[in-house]
């Protein structure tokens, strides 16, 4: 039942928000309801009975099944943390019709929650799209100058991917014994190797576009650049995890043979993607695009780790899903504060933040350290395990991917240098102290970053059951 509330509470709030015209009230409503979700998510961590099953489409043999294991829980937690954080941090941003904005955001949250819980393929597809559509409107209405064309490209691109996944679901459905969509019967579908390969490709494209994996990534920097930052935060902190979640939840268990066949190819592709994105990040001048490419590199590493199919690497990826979300969220909030106050995203025009707003600069450096996976930040734990798994698969692969560790240092420190250090630039000079709420959120996030970096054991415990399921067979 608690799982249903993750859908129910955001949707209720979203509908309620349509009626609340006043900006302040709307914001409070959004914050309170997303706060309730967060509380529920914390409660969920302590409970074990977390399945929900109801009849939905008897003609199609599709059921309304929700299920949460460690993998789901950790992502639900991430989603639950992200939304209140985003609402608080961006509360001072000016949006026309902010109630509609928040309402759409909450719909997105419901969709994301659904994706992470769905135990039925058709339901999964439903939520997958539910998470996408509000984002389309959010970006197109409240985004930057070129928002319409860019968002449209993003929408069609991802929609095409998910349609192919739908074909894959149909294909699997046709091969199950009882023609149902449940995870269980999908798992028991007897597929030949060729069929596995077909299904694998169909699912994978959807996930790869969502992640996004090189070379399917070109929608991402543009979209991140053009979207309102609150939406970008959702996209890069939570939405990109949908792809990785999909791989762990569906691709890996359903097509084990095809998965193993593609291991090396995918790892090589991911590693190329990591290096490629890192190199481009070095040359980015736009703060948002910078974070986008850095994110592509990190996601690529997670993908590579998952495809090594080693326990160590997948364990690393499991907790990195969470860690990366927090880190990138922090970076976005800092970027947003700077952009809102100075009106620029160009790194060239920044500088001297450390002098003008030292607290913000410290926070920025904190998240930048997490971005380059300094030890004792949460990212180190995940990346350490992932690289270790890569090394287990192939030492050379780990070495090549490891170059990204150096490249990450280069591009992140470049960014930090341009933003925080040097003489105070004209733009930065206009900056006021950041809004207290945003600052508080950043501090909480930073504490989380270091807390889970020093003592990540709870995250391991949380995801242990998923890991076991993946490797028990």
């Amino acid at each position, binding site marked *: 039942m608690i799982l249903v509330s993750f859908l129910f509470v955001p949707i209720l709030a979203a509908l309620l928000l349509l009626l609340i015209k006043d900006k302040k009230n709307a914001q409070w409503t959004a914050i309170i309801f997303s706060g309730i979700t967060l509380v529920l998510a914390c409660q969920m961590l302590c409970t074990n009975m977390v399945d929900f099953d109801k009849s939905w489409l008897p003609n199609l043999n599709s059921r309304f099944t929700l299920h949460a294991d460690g993998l789901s829980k950790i992502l639900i937690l991430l989603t639950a943390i992200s939304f209140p954080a985003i609402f608080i941090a961006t509360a001072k941003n000016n949006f026309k019709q902010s109630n509609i904005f928040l309402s759409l955001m909450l719909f997105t949250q419901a969709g994301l929650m659904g994706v992470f819980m769905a135990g039925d393929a058709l339901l999964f597809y439903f939520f997958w799209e539910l998470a996408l559509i509000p984002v389309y409107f959010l970006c197109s209405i409240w985004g930057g100058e070129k928002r319409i064309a860019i968002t449209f*490209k993003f929408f069609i*691109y991802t929609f095409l991917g998910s349609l192919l996944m739908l074909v894959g679901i149909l294909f699997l459905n046709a091969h199950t014994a009882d023609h149902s969509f449940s995870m269980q019967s999908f798992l028991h579908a007897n597929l030949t190797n060729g069929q596995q390969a077909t299904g694998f490709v169909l699912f994978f494209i959807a996930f790869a576009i969502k992640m996004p994996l090189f*070379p399917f*990534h*070109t*929608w991402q920097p543009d979209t991140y650049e053009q979207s309102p930052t609150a939406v970008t935060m959702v996209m890069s902190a939570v939405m990109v995890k949908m792809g990785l979640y999909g791989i762990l939840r569906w691709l890996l268990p359903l097509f084990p043979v095809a998965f193993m066949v593609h291991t090396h190819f995918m790892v090589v592709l991911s590693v190329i993607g990591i290096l*490629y994105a890192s*190199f*481009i990040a*070095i*040359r*980015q001048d736009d703060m948002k695009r910078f974070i986008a490419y850095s994110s592509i590199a990190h996601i690529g590493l997670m993908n590579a780790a998952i495809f090594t199919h080693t*326990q*160590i690497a*997948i*364990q690393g990826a499991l907790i990195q899903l969470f860690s990366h979300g927090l880190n990138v969220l922090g970076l976005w909030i800092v970027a947003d504060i700077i952009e809102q106050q100075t009106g620029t995203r160009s790194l060239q025009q920044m500088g*001297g933040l*450390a*002098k003008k707003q*030292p607290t913000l600069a410290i926070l920025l450096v904190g998240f930048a*350290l997490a971005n380059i996976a*300094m*030890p*004792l930040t949460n990212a180190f*734990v995940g990346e*350490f*395990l992932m*690289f*270790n798994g890569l*090394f*287990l698969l192939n*030492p050379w692969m*780990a*070495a090549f991917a*490891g*170059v990204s*560790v*150096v490249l990450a*240092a*280069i591009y992140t*420190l*470049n960014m930090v*240098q341009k933003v*925080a*250090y*040097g*003489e*105070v630039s004209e733009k930065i000079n206009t900056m006021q102290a950041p809004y207290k709420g945003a600052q508080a959120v950043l501090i909480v996030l930073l504490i989380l970053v270091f807390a889970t970096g*020093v*003592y*990540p*054991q709870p995250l*391991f415990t949380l995801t*242990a059951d998923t*890991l076991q399921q993946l490797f028990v067979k």
Partner: protein
Amino acid sequence: MGIMKILIAFILLWPLAGFLFNGLGRNYWSKKVIAYKATGYIVASFIASIFAFMYVQDHGAVTVHYFDFINAASIKIPFDFKVDALSALFLLVITGVGSLIHLYSSAYMKEEAAPHYARYFSYLNLFIFSMLVLVLGDNYVVMFIGWEGVGLCSYLLIGYWFTNGNYNYAAKKAFIMNRIGDLGFLLAIFWIIVKLGSVNYSEVLTADSLAKLSSADITGITLLLFVGAMGKSAQIPLFTWLPDAMAGPTPVSALIHAATMVTAGIYMITRSNLLFSHSELTQHVIAIIGISTALLAATIAIKQNDIKKVLAYSTVSQLGYMFLGLGVGAYSGAVFHVITHAFFKALLFLGAGSVIHAMHHEQDIRKMGGLKSKLPITHITFLIGCIAIAGVPPFSGFFSKDEILAAAFAKSPIYWVLGVIGAAMTAFYMFRLYTTTFLGKFRGTADQENHLHESPLAMTLPLILLAIASALAGAIGIPEIMGGHHWLSHQLIPIVGEPIELGLSHSLEWTLIAVSVGIALVALLWAIAIYKKKTDEAPNTVVGNFFYHKWRIDELYNEAIVYPLNRFAGFLKNTIEKHVIDGAVNGAGKLIQYSARKVRLTQNGQVGYYILFMVTGIIVLFLLWFNDVPIFIFFNKLTQN
């Protein structure tokens, strides 16, 4: 056990507490409070370290377990700390020298505003914490945590004056070069995990695990570890960051870039000596790179005019020596040199700091001169440091350097010859520095001359203490032929084993000592003779120019690595990303638009054509239905799967 758990926690947490208090309270506390706190915490840590050292003397090595850092998916990495003879020694050096430098800094940094003053000390405290984690860790991952931590602190401190773009650049360069090394270290850790399933010293550094590793494994692991050490300890080819790191405040250079952090590589290799001893190849590589670095840096140091640059290259050179020692198997000699070097190099840097302080941030030695009388304490202590580093007996540098040279000779006389040349150059450039700075006439501006003053007690006291240490530290390692019993190497037996029998006769050893000391003395006197009268102007010989420009290695790196990579990144960004990948996506859209424009022409508005198309359509349907039409076979194949 129980008491050690608390003690080690004390050692570690005091600096961390200092970091947090100073960092968070930087806007609230006065400079005095900040300085007292920061220094006090390190002194407290030093005292605790002394207790720990004594405990180890009595009870041997101790390992304490706090909690598991990573315990998942078949690997287990605990937060374990270990105090044994090696780490205890390092503890003392770090906290001891660290305390002095904190004290020194409290005066040196006085001009800074309170928040920045606090920031400085919090960084410094964090550095001590990281360094302690590095040496105390009982496994490679914890060492790596400290390893990266000190890199970070180094970055922060080099870029302490963050409004200066060049300083930031230097800081970034330091961090990135360290990262390259760290990558090697990381890969080595993975290799160890993959082969041995553990990273704990107690399980990796045993005879059992050696049996599990093939010789290729050992060579690979040790080479990768050495790559890590290269980055941290500024060896060829990753040494260029260290001279640039002089952008930081001088006490930082003394603490981090001379006494402690840069010796982490030596610590790590000494710690893993069991593995290194089993790879002949690695040992040779280390020795060759070590001696090359020593000579290269020495040649550069001869031509530098910036007081800190000279000391920096000298540090690189001395680190090279230490690696030579490691390469030839003289682990205890290397550690010995680390300790003595920590004292005299810290002393030299602090002395330089004192000079700079007096000279109002003038660092060019050509504009100094004749400071002997104006800065008496600084002068004396600096001279002691110079003598110590030049290897003149009975100062500490002589003993440690000699031990390395003896071992080098035993391995190969060529190493020894090169080592002696290096030692001579060291003596030469150090006394060039000393002479130009302190002797002769004052060459600075009148304004500077009027303000020349001896530094306050907080700065001179550390100088004096370090000078005493530099002079006397040799006592812990007096070799047996001189009647000592080499306390240090006995201390280190649990770590590096019994000292290797060099197999050199006493007379030969004495000869070697005599030759090396003799050459060093000649070089020393020669330097004084030359530079007493004149200063080095811009070099005019080709070789001199070459040395003056640091072998143009920075330029080489820029041309060969940085620019091409930058160009490559630009190529990826502007060409591949924009035109190839995004071009393909947009091209698909354009293709649809284009075909829309073409296909719509079939709809030309004339009934006759429409019906014509329909008739054609029917004919096509019939043709498709005929079995022998090729298109049929095509569709046939498509639909079959």
